[in-house]
């Protein structure tokens, strides 16, 4: 177990050998050899080439941002920020719509709403489970089971989202429709969040459940990582004071790892916000806002997936691209904070391949 990480000095990742831990300082011999080499030009060229490869990551982020801004210009010039909350009432039928490509009316409110609702639902379901799994795997699990269980949860992260969607359409949605939803309607129907008016079983709830299954492994594996980064001395100190195992976990581990855990939750949120295919297959794809969680809806990512290839006219394309731009900015911000928090905790311990 790694006990080095809480030192203020940022040591090198992967530092089980002492030689590697001191790596940032290039030794004097090495510098001498590098400067006297007979291939200084080749070396310089090589290092520039590699630097170029590294910089390509900035280039990609820049390109994405540039293209999205340029292609959505039409939409944000015309609507401005009102794009995200405007609505439209038909003068004849008095029906309020938000998104009507045929009549060239575009407002992103139902998609923002759908994204937020399905992601929050996913977090509410996934976070307690993920922390439970992480606690079990790091603190309670017998050694024999630890690695296979960790592997299983990793595998869950590797399943493509379209397969989750396929499974959700044919297995999860029928189960929700036949078993869970009637129960929720009966018990919690009075709150208005579970209305009995959608026989398809598709909707925010289905999207939230499948999203929860999808982001669980991300949250639990990162939580596990930050929990193993808590030094053993902390656990032993709490135990030595006579704490039970749960008190040890609560005071010694969770309290020390809380920043990293919050980071991993935010990272899971980032994934949930941008998840497309599985959600597209189960959310119902209607640009409406409903209070009921069992109603059909749509989300930012899914409306792009559903309509982009068949968009009618420049304005429609531009509006969809603006939704994409908003998604890009939000996920960049969310991931930025998540990475900051996780780095603050796991810096210095070897990161696992995720």
């Amino acid at each position, binding site marked *: 177990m790694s006990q080095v990480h809480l030192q203020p000095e940022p040591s090198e990742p992967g530092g089980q050998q002492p030689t590697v831990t001191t790596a940032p300082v290039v030794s004097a011999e090495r510098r001498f050899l590098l400067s006297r080499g007979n291939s200084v030009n080749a070396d310089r060229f090589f290092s520039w080439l590699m630097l170029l490869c590294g910089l*390509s990551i900035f280039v990609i982020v820049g390109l994405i941002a540039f293209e999205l801004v340029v292609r959505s210009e039409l939409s944000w010039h015309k609507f401005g920020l009102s794009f995200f909350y405007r609505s439209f009432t038909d003068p004849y039928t008095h029906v309020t719509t938000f998104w009507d490509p045929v009549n060239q009316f575009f407002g992103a409110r139902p998609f923002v709403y759908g994204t937020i609702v399905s992601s929050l639902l996913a977090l509410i379901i996934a976070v307690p489970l993920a922390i439970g799994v992480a606690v079990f795997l790091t603190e309670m699990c017998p050694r024999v089971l630890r690695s296979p269980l960790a592997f299983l949860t990793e595998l869950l992260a590797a399943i493509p989202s379209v397969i989750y969607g396929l499974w959700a359409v*044919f297995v999860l949605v029928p189960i929700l429709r036949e078993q869970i939803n009637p129960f929720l309607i009966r018990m919690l129907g009075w709150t208005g969040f579970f209305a009995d008016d959608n026989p398809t079983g598709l909707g925010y709830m289905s999207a939230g459940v499948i999203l929860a299954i999808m982001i669980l492994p991300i949250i639990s594996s990162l939580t596990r990582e930050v929990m193993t980064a808590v030094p053993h001395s902390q656990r032993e100190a709490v135990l030595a004071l006579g704490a039970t195992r749960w008190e040890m976990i609560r005071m010694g581990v969770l309290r020390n790892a809380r920043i990293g855990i919050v980071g991993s939750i935010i990272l899971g949120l980032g994934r949930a916000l941008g998840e497309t295919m599985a959600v597209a297959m189960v959310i119902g794809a209607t640009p409406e806002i409903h209070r009921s969680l069992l109603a059909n809806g749509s989300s930012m990512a899914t409306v792009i997936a559903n309509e*982009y290839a068949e968009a009618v006219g420049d304005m429609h394309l531009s509006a969809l691209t603006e939704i994409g731009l908003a998604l890009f900015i939000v996920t960049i911000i969310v991931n930025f904070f998540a990475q900051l928090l996780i780095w603050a905790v796991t810096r210095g311990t070897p990161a696992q391949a995720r």
Partner: protein
Amino acid sequence: MSNGGSNFQSQVRSVTDHMVTALAILATIIVVAPLIAIFGYLVFKGASSLNLDFFTKIPKPVGETGGGMANAILGSAILLGIASVIGIPIGIGGAIYLAEFGRGSKLANSIRFTADVLNGVPSIVMGLAAYSLIVVPKIPFLPFTGHFSAISGGVALGFMMIPTVCRTSEEMLLMVPNSIREAALGLGVPNWRSVLSISVKTASPGIITGCMLAFARVAGETAPLIFTALGNQFWSFSLNQPIAALPLQIYVYALSPYDDWHRLAWGGSLVLIILIVVSVSLVRFVTSRGVLKGNS
């Protein structure tokens, strides 16, 4: 603080302790259950629809039974080939910069951070970017621009591979002990040679598995292909034309109303998941048994 009170208290504490243990075990079961359900269902549904036709025939028109996904498998292979040609060299190059040249520098740290952030950008946004970059503009002298094509899909997937390849390879390169590098330099080997033949070679099992991990990740991506590769019901070998892809085909078939297409979707999913599980297990195996042991 009296002894009588603490007896009751300690009972409460021990009950809480047991309850939490039970809850944690329950949570683990709840998490593992869908995994087993998904795999069980995939194998059960998928295996029955896999036959020789699946791997050799193209889809039949609606109404006729039979047919396969051969064109989608080929299409996925072509798309992943393009993606690998773009993503793997650039990703490894970036990793070499991060691990060998830029260690500890501000620039390297910000590249590393940006790569992690880029990893979290939704794949649909990558698809939008590739669409705007390649499908929309008609750039002179670049014949593959201006329309849906295999190239545009491959580029979108390749861009997605770069940060993953870069970060996993970097972690592997960082495990190579410095003494080996210095030994190479001490023998008069030029630095670029020492990086390629010593560092990269020593880390190569890890780097290869890192690449496979990235490969497996983009192999199942659907969202970036919807409006770049577009999909195709027929054989297509041209990089300039819309091309079929396995995940895309699964998506279309899953939402279709035909049982026969559902069957094909399950079969395709099984093929895809086998590819992914094999590469992920390989990664696990190599990183735990290799020369450079990860600390995980």
